[in-house]
């Protein structure tokens, strides 16, 4: 019996161009920043807008990452995701208002403590809400996209109304903690401290999610499940549990995004979730379903574009993002870095 001939190619690594090709979309971000620099008259304005854009992008990313994983893994469209954002914001703000002594203090430590408490509170509540949502509203309609859209929209309405019931109909204003107030000057531009922090924090969340997906077994299961859920089950994993876990995590991330957004706007309304959801949808679509990296790049693009056009031609802000979506879909109909292909 002869041994099988050796099938190893002469190179065990793919050529550079082939390896880089999926990452081309990442170049769009610096390209857009450059475009902004060319179009915006004042360098200082451009700098401020770029930071705002990146900060907004980070917040949208935090929310979109959960949504794209939920859709990628579970094939579930949750139109109620916006409610988690709003709920997270309201819970977080309530915690901050309760801890006003901590937020009012000039100490960074105490401020951070209050923020962490707010974030944990928000994420716990929205995570729990997500769990309930999955059990009651989503689980009965697995596999039926139309019903999912309808039912989760219903859930959105109910959740939003519950915010009115619990917190009343008016908007609530929230001041940023002392240490995060104000701005630093850099190259003639005033850069809000909070926004800089938001950029750093968002980046940390991105890296954390990436780490979990790439270096833990659970992450492995999620990534494999996005591709072929049946095979994952045939390997012995209870995908159902992973589903619920991802849904809860995604909802908690939406809550986190809500808190970040609340402090960005310094005001919260029950509607705020819906307003951002349009941008989140755009990000999920252009990023490619199931791709956290795609959502990251997409979110930065959307955030930057939103801020640049709001400065240059305010009326075109949302329309410009629609234009971005159309352009990207023309280039790559599945999104920039899709993990799941056509069904």
């Amino acid at each position, binding site marked *: 019996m002869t041994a099988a001939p050796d099938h190893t190619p002469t190179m065990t690594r793919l050529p550079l161009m082939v390896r880089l090709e999926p990452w081309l979309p990442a170049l769009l971000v610096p390209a857009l920043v450059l475009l902004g620099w060319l179009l915006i008259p004042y360098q200082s304005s451009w700098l401020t807008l770029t930071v705002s854009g990146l900060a907004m992008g980070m917040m949208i990313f935090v929310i979109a990452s959960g949504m794209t994983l939920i859709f990628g893994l579970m094939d579930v469209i949750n139109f109620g995701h916006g409610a988690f954002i709003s709920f997270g914001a309201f819970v977080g703000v309530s915690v901050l208002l309760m801890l006003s002594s901590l937020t009012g203090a000039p100490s960074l430590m105490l401020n951070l403590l209050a923020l962490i408490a707010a974030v944990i509170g928000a994420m716990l509540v929205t995570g729990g809400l997500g769990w309930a949502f999955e059990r009651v509203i989503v689980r009965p309609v697995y596999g039926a996209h139309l019903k999912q859209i309808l039912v989760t929209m219903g859930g959105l309405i109910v959740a939003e109304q519950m915010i009115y019931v619990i917190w009343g109909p008016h908007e609530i204003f929230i001041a940023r903690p002392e240490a995060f107030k104000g701005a630093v000057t850099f190259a003639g531009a005033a850069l809000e401290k909070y926004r800089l922090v938001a950029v750093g924090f968002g980046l940390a969340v991105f890296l954390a999610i990436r780490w979990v997906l790439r270096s833990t077994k659970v992450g492995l299961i999620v990534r494999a499940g996005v591709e072929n859920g049946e095979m994952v*089950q045939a390997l*012995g994993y209870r995908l159902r549990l992973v589903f619920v876990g991802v849904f809860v995590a995604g909802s908690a991330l939406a809550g986190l995004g809500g808190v970040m957004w609340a402090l960005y706007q310094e005001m919260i309304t029950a509607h705020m979730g819906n307003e951002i959801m349009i941008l989140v949808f755009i990000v999920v679509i252009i990023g490619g379903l199931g791709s956290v990296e795609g959502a990251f790049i997409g979110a930065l693009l959307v955030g930057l574009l939103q801020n640049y056009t709001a400065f240059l031609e305010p009326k075109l802000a949302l329309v410009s993002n629609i234009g971005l979506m159309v352009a990207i879909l023309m280039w790559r109909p599945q999104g920039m870095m899709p993990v799941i292909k056509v069904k």
Partner: protein
Amino acid sequence: MPDPLMPDPFLTLEGVKTDIAQYHILHGVDLTVPRGQVTMLLGRNGAGKTTTLRTIMGLWKPREGRILLDGADIAGLAPAAIARKGVAIVPEDMGIFANLTVEENMILAAASGPFDRERLDWLLGVFPPLRTFWKMPAGNLSGGQKQMLATARAMVEERALYLIDEPSKGLAPAIVSTLARALRELKAAGATILMVEQNFALARALGDRVAVMDDGRITWAGAMAELAADPALQERLMGLSMETAR
């Protein structure tokens, strides 16, 4: 028609009927797979062979019937539960996770814990391309290499039952012979295998027992030697003889 002289049955299907949507595919399958032997499942395309394997794995739920694995009825259990009982499937489409590396595919398959280093080394020796492409995304492998990965995944831990679906489909003879070698080593180690295979040469070389399937039912079951020695029987059951077919 289970063989009354069957040695030590490990897997038994009794009257299994499976539907897919509104189509009846399995019309009452009675099949016995003896422990420690390789059972080949032969038949024309559309006979229901893949459906049988998938039903055993729990990927389709049988409408009726029992599936006894070492005495316990697993019909209707979730695939994950069946997998945990030691059943592994190498599906027709291989089920490779293209975005994961070869290493990650193997890690996932070793569900019960870290790799058995010795076993892994042996596997990589049987399938050298896997070692070469260890850190590469599995989607970049060629068809034959993917099949090697799919098979290696099933073999990364010792399983109670291997369900293998047409491993040689569309592969070059050289790769088929690598696979045959791996399966032979599995068999030598005493594994219980139920394999669907259209390649008669491979089936005859590896199979101890054979069951022929047609139209959702088992039409004949017995020793491979018996079927191989009777061209007329082969002609009757499968429409052609194993000698002439390639």
